């Protein structure tokens, strides 16, 4: 934490950046909030731990893309997944690589607060501390410590690129990416079910969706000026939470981020209805990896998979 603050301070005082986007302690225990640091004094509020759930590269797209279009030089603190979002946005020409300073931090996974509250039987948590390996929660008349690994988000459990794939500075030592051989076990399990069972599960899962679009809004890859769900001429899908409209929204959203989703899990953490959104994203990511050999956001020279093609590609799904 100290090293992060010192690094940001020197970047700002040396004039290498005008602004740094990072996290600071939030108002609730176990929460952080994005912070914009423009003077060295403010840098002391910066933190990085398992509460830093937001994918900060979202600040370079959507309505905030003006930020990146100014002549400002911006520094941003990133986890592995966030750095992949940045790389994607750079390859999509949304961000100018020259104007952004990427500060990598070593990530051990971010919290899934539902798992934490589950550990303490839903009792109110008043204090939260994290030492990088173990987390301690305190409340009225209780105190509990457990390994961080048990309470990290599902997306972090199978994550093999925890440290920034592209960075200018790294706090500590960046680890090499692991093997993604077992990254899609959950998807493979679901694939084994029969078609009717899969539909029934989907219907059950997605019938909870209230169409608040939080998943879309928090996603750094979702930045169309007008989203297809907001179009009304033609109106592609109904606005009501009817299962067919909801399913189509989620299927199309997944196709729109096909080969662009970095599986950071921001959508799932933002979902107020606790829908397991990542299952579909992971299915798509698995197809993209297996069919096109492409892993999103891992190299500045890679084209996004769906904007690319090879002439002699596997076309087993086309009628012979």
């Amino acid at each position: 934490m100290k090293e992060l603050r010192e690094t940001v301070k020197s970047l700002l005082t040396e004039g290498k950046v005008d602004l740094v986007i990072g996290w600071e302690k939030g108002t609730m225990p176990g929460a952080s909030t994005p912070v914009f640091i423009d003077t060295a004094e403010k840098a002391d509020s910066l933190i990085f731990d398992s509460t830093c759930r937001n994918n900060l590269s979202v600040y370079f797209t959507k309505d905030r893309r003006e930020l990146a279009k100014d002549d400002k030089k911006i520094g941003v603190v990133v986890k592995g997944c966030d750095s992949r979002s940045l790389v994607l946005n750079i390859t999509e020409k949304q961000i100018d690589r020259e104007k952004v300073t990427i500060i990598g931090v070593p990530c051990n996974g971010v919290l899934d607060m539902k798992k934490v509250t589950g550990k303490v039987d839903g009792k109110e948590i008043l204090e939260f501390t994290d030492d990088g390996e173990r987390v301690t929660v305190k409340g009225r008349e209780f105190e509990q410590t457990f390994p961080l690994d048990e309470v990290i988000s599902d997306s972090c459990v199978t994550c093999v690129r925890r440290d920034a794939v592209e960075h200018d500075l790294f706090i500590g030592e960046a680890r090499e990416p692991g093997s993604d051989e077992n990254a899609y076990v959950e998807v493979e399990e679901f694939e084994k079910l029969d078609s009717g069972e899969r539909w029934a599960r989907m219907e059950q899962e997605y019938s909870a969706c209230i169409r608040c679009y939080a998943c879309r809004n928090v996603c750094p890859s979702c930045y169309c000026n007008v989203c297809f769900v907001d179009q009304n001429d033609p109106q592609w899908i109904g606005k009501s939470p009817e299962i067919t409209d909801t399913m189509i929204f989620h299927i199309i959203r997944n196709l729109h981020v096909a080969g662009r989703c970095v599986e950071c899990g921001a959508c799932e953490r933002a979902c107020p209805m606790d829908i397991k959104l990542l299952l579909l994203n992971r299915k798509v990511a698995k197809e993209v990896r297996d069919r096109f050999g492409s892993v999103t956001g891992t190299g500045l020279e890679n084209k996004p998979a769906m904007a690319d093609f090879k002439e002699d590609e596997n076309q087993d799904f086309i009628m012979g």
Partner: protein
Amino acid sequence: MSEWEPKILAVLCNWCSYAGADLAGVSRMQYPPNIRVVRVPCSGRVDPLFILKGLQSGYDGVLVSGCHPGDCHYISGNYVARRRFAVLKPLLEFVGIEPDRVQFSWISAGEGERFAEVVSKVTEDIKKIGPAKRLVKGA
């Protein structure tokens, strides 16, 4: 009650598959009358939304057809479409849409006979799986 006949949406590219359908027609070939044709400039124009919207509004199946790889009027439209369908099809199957409900093929302007065969095959497949229920509005 008469036997149920599926309604199939056929999205055909203007330069190859639509011309293939035309050839089948002028050659007086017989094929099932279950398809409703939508002509698009290129298979690359086919947004997955078209297919899902078709299923939602009551079609029992969707056939998308374009030029063979290498024959695209716009050079690479069908290659881009192929990548899109390569992800769309497994995803639809994953959420529980029957595999034969949505099908893709390449048919050139000279393949009138093949067009008739493809339509027969698709119609047969969809008859086998029965009327669409999943994703259908109001079902």
